[in-house]
């Protein structure tokens, strides 16, 4: 690839002219005062309304968007290519950079995908902790999505309330896995290490405080006249459109599609936990906001139930292929040290096969399609990010809407650049 740029070359290759003059059509006829010429505007990667690095180019007639197309790929980090070049154990680090607002859900889904390929059973305590982590990640993801949606439409204090609860959740997650955002907590066949003693007690206190705060947030915004006028009837997406575009998660439930993978396709212990699935009616920004707020309360109930059922027990599966030898065995015996070395350097072999494992992530159906040809590395690691299918519908959703409504639409479908560009 001779086009490869040397590593330390400073600055971009210079280009002769900076403003590329493309002839923009001026079809405004002089006699019609009311008809103006179309404005071609580029709401580019660095824009407060564009979460992460997204880009929308639109043709405007005054304030209304007549035609627009969206672009992404500005944070493409080649995770699928890395999936083919990293062992299954090393790839865990990349999974929590997918949807970085709820990193734990990606870890749990990836661990499940590989355990399913290997037929590995994880002990009950690890599954219960994984469920608590997944639901906690869902709560903080909804908090930031609804918060940012409110900030884009002007309600800043609503965001600060949500962010405070998020910080408390961060401290709990930091106690659990040492990192606030990029957790990398689950392992194939178990967890990194056990939850610190008394952790579930603190989780339950956090649940009580968060429930109170979210009720306050709900009072602050739901009956707020400005908020309902800015969001009701805006960005309406009907059931058929959602099915056509492959919507899933809160965006689909906001339009009345009653589907939740935790209930329809139960993994882990979601069968023995009661929760119901909030479904909206008319699929506008307000309904998606209400569905997310209701889901926060449901997830808090699930966390409380899981925290009650947590019993002490092993967190690692007994399967020899994935079980990392304990430290004293590694330091004192030759076999332990060799096993430890081989496990981390060469990686364990996953038997040949392919599986498409999906889980209800915070903003939709997150799927890992893993094809393994028997080696320590995947032959193909495909990550199905729900944001791709949601962002695809943005130009149809904003057809004929005002620019300000486009900002509300984008905030409501919760696009995360990490899992959009992979």
């Amino acid at each position: 690839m001779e086009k490869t740029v040397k590593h330390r070359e400073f600055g971009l290759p210079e280009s002769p002219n900076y403003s590329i003059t493309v002839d923009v059509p001026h079809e405004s006829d002089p006699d019609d005062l009311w008809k103006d010429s179309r404005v071609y505007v580029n709401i580019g990667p660095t824009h407060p309304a564009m979460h992460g690095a997204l880009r929308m180019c639109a043709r405007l007639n005054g304030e209304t968007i007549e035609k627009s197309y969206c672009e992404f790929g500005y944070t493409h980090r080649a995770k699928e290519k890395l999936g083919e070049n990293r062992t299954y154990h090393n790839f865990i680090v990349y999974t929590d950079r997918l949807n970085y607002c709820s990193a734990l859900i990606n870890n749990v889904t990836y661990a499940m995908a590989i355990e399913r390929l290997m037929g590995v059973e994880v002990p009950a305590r690890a599954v219960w902790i994984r469920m608590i982590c997944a639901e906690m990640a869902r709560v903080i993801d909804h908090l930031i999505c609804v918060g940012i949606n409110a900030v884009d439409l002007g309600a800043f204090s609503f965001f600060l309330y949500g962010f405070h609860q998020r910080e408390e959740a961060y401290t709990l997650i930091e106690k659990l896995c040492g990192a606030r955002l990029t957790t990398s907590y689950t392992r194939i066949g178990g967890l990194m290490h056990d939850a610190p003693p008394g952790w579930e007690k603190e989780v339950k206190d956090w649940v009580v405080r968060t429930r109170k705060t979210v009720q306050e947030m709900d009072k602050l915004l739901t009956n707020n006249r400005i908020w309902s006028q800015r969001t009701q009837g805006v960005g309406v997406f009907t059931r058929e459109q959602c099915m056509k575009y492959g919507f899933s998660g809160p965006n689909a439930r906001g339009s009345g599609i009653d589907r939740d993978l935790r209930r329809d396709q139960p993994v882990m212990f979601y069968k023995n936990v009661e929760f119901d699935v909030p479904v909206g009616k008319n699929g506008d920004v307000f309904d998606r906001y209400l569905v997310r707020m209701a889901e926060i309360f449901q997830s808090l109930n699930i966390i409380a139930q899981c925290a009650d059922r947590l019993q002490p027990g092993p967190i690692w599966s007994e399967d020899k292929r994935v079980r990392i030898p304990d430290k004293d065995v590694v330091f004192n015996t030759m076999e332990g040290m060799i096993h430890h070395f081989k496990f981390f350097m060469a990686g364990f072999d996953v038997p040949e096969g392919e599986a498409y494992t999906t889980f209800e992530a915070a903003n939709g159906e997150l799927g890992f399609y893993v094809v393994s040809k028997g080696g320590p590395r995947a032959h193909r690691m495909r990550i199905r990010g729900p944001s791709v299918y949601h962002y695809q519908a943005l130009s149809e959703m904003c057809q004929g809407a005002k620019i300000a409504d486009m900002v509300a639409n984008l905030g409501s479908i919760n696009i995360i650049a990490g899992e959009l560009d992979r």
Partner: protein
Amino acid sequence: MEYIPVLILMGFGALVGGGALLLSALLGPKSPNARKNMPFECGMNPVGDARQRFSVRFYLIAILFLLFDVEALFFYPWAVVYKKYLSINAFILLEMAVFVAILLVGYFYVLGKGALEWD
């Protein structure tokens, strides 16, 4: 007679405003280059020229705002002397009512003509 404080206020305002501009012009380093003079388009290179014809609606809304804003301006001197003259006779209220009534007529005319509807 007591216009000195007003002059002081205006002078102080000019001083702060002008001073800030002067200081930044003097102390501020200047290094223009082609990419810096390009208009900011969210990081992209701009396409076409910015001289586009805008619809008349924007101009209409601007003029209407100007009109009612200046109307609000006239309330200030009236409000200052309002308390003193009210004790003499209540005619001051009638004067302002007439002024507002005339502008309300204009407002309802604008509403009737539908100038405030956007599309």
